[in-house]
């Protein structure tokens, strides 16, 4: 029997937001869950996120946004991910995301939307359940 390929996650900090405590905590939780995690570091442009996701052959593209610019960023990222053939991957986003924006984020293709109060195990379970 061939061992299942580990789930590959690219976890990015888009925009200029420097709050990375949460992103790093989530990255560690995903690593502990056995996923292959690439954390990008701060200030990633949409183009850079797409490039890294392609390089790492990511199954999951995860964003962390704490400073309120999640909607403009996701609007820019969506067409770039689709053009790069990453439209069928699992896109998720976490951070400081006001409830009134959740529907817009889901409509943009972000299947998992995790507010800052989310539990680590819930994020892990969501990825396991929804990964393509």
């Amino acid at each position, binding site marked *: 029997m061939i061992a299942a390929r580990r789930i590959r996650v690219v976890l990015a900090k888009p925009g*200029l937001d420097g709050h990375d405590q949460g992103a790093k905590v989530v990255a560690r939780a995903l690593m502990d869950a056995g996923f292959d995690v690439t954390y990008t570091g701060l200030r990633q442009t949409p183009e850079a996120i797409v490039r890294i996701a392609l390089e790492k052959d990511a199954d999951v593209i995860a964003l962390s946004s704490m400073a309120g610019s999640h909607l403009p960023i996701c609007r820019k990222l969506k067409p770039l991910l689709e053009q790069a053939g990453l439209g069928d991957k699992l896109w998720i986003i976490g951070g400081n995301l006001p409830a009134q924006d959740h529907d817009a984020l889901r409509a943009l293709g972000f299947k998992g939307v995790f507010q800052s109060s989310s539990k680590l195990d819930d994020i892990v379970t969501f990825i396991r359940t929804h990964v393509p």
Partner: protein
Amino acid sequence: MKPGDPPAMETRSVTNESGIEIKPLYTAADVEASVGDGLLGLPGQYPFTRGIHPQMYRKQPWTMRQYTGFGNPVDTNKRFHYLIANGQTGLNVAFDLPTQCGMDSDDPQAEGEVGRVGMAVDTLRDFEIAFEGVDLERITVSLTINGAAAILIAMYLAMAEKRGYDITKLRGTAQNDILKEFIGRGTWVYPAAPSIRLVGDTIEYCAKHAPKYSPVSVCGYHIRESGADPAQEVAYAFCIARAYADEVIRRGLPVDEFAGRLSFNFNCFGNLFEQVAKFRAGRSLWAQIMQEQYGATRPGSMWMRMLAGGGGGGLTFEQPELNIVRGAYYALICALSGAQTMALCCYDEAYTIPSEYAQRISLRTMQLLIEEMGLTDTVDPLGGSYYVETLTNQMRGRMQDIMAEVDAQGGIVKLVTEGAIQAKVSAQAYQHQREIENGTFRKVGVNCYRTDEKAPEMEFHPYNELDASAQIQSLNRVRADRNAARVQAALSRVQADARSGANLMPAIIEAVKAYASVGEITGVLVGVFGRFREPVGL
């Protein structure tokens, strides 16, 4: 049990976040055994454990300085006047992320971020608008700026001078602590060495030309938010403060000519007594470091002056109204700890930047302590408590051990540049989050006393997309109106001085006076210095 024996004590082990075991009862014997070392003394006397001034709040309450700024300078100016009208005694300016990262509002990377988490600033014109009508002698201004600090300090000095203030008497503070930005917060621009040089340039320039201005506020705050425990928070901040002091001393400036203008910014979420002991311990340790290691002789050089009152990491998304109560305890901690300035976290900060209403509640919380609760009646009211004095001594010991460990591993600059401190505190943050989620670290409303009731409707601060376009239009007007040749000449001088190693402040001040923008000046410096490369290893 014989009559007269103390009652049997409960044996459950209680350890504070800094790793110190807490006993169920403290007596005079514990204070003695914890190596008091005569480190207590009187307020206003070395080593200042009980406070840096003899009378503290009896003479003057702490400065009230809520963190404020959003949209464009016109919006922010209105909020400044609102807070001052409500009794605030200082300003603490929040800048948007493009400004903090040294970009102009029309930079492609700034799209969607202009004016969002703070005020957008591109040129001196923005400072002229933002501080219009603010009496800069009565209201001292703190600039929360780091990567772009040299430029914004230059703008502040230029704006004040233009309005006729005597720069040699001008007071105020800039955060300007770049090493902690590498650990947490992340608004770095240049690599470590030129970044530290710029901090040195601001300290040296201010010591000579604006001696009442505090050019640096060294922050344990964000290191704690990133996962450090309270003892590490202070120990790492002191290591960073020493790195800046070393940079300035290397240039030949005597310690007593600048150390008195260094200040600190600390966090206060967590166990109340641990925080109070942390601040008292930190005060005596800093005095000791400055006297014994740096040979400071002026008392002011040994003072750990501090801003405190924030503690975002302790606030919760769940039951946000409880954050008002947490904020009140934060204020109490600060008042019991002899803080010079308070900036309280607002209850809505787990959601957004504070609304006017939330800021007024924070301001009233501090005013309540002064007017109703008697927190300004006497100095260091917890002084002499067996528990607090023992814990103060133990916290000081922990801080000394951590500082020695940093030195043994090659020093703070090396550890931060390589990402070692980041990895350490991030691992702790993960551990802490696991403890909250498995219930071993109790958090009210999160893992105990939860409720299904919907939180009361809160008014959130709205983001106005139009503010960004107005800001870009304003920048374009400034660019059209200014003397292009003067801007070019000033930017060339910035470049030349960056290369030669001269103090950059005179050239930067000249450039901002010519209305060169934050992005233009930063661009020239990046051309010479390059950019910081973040160590992202976990």
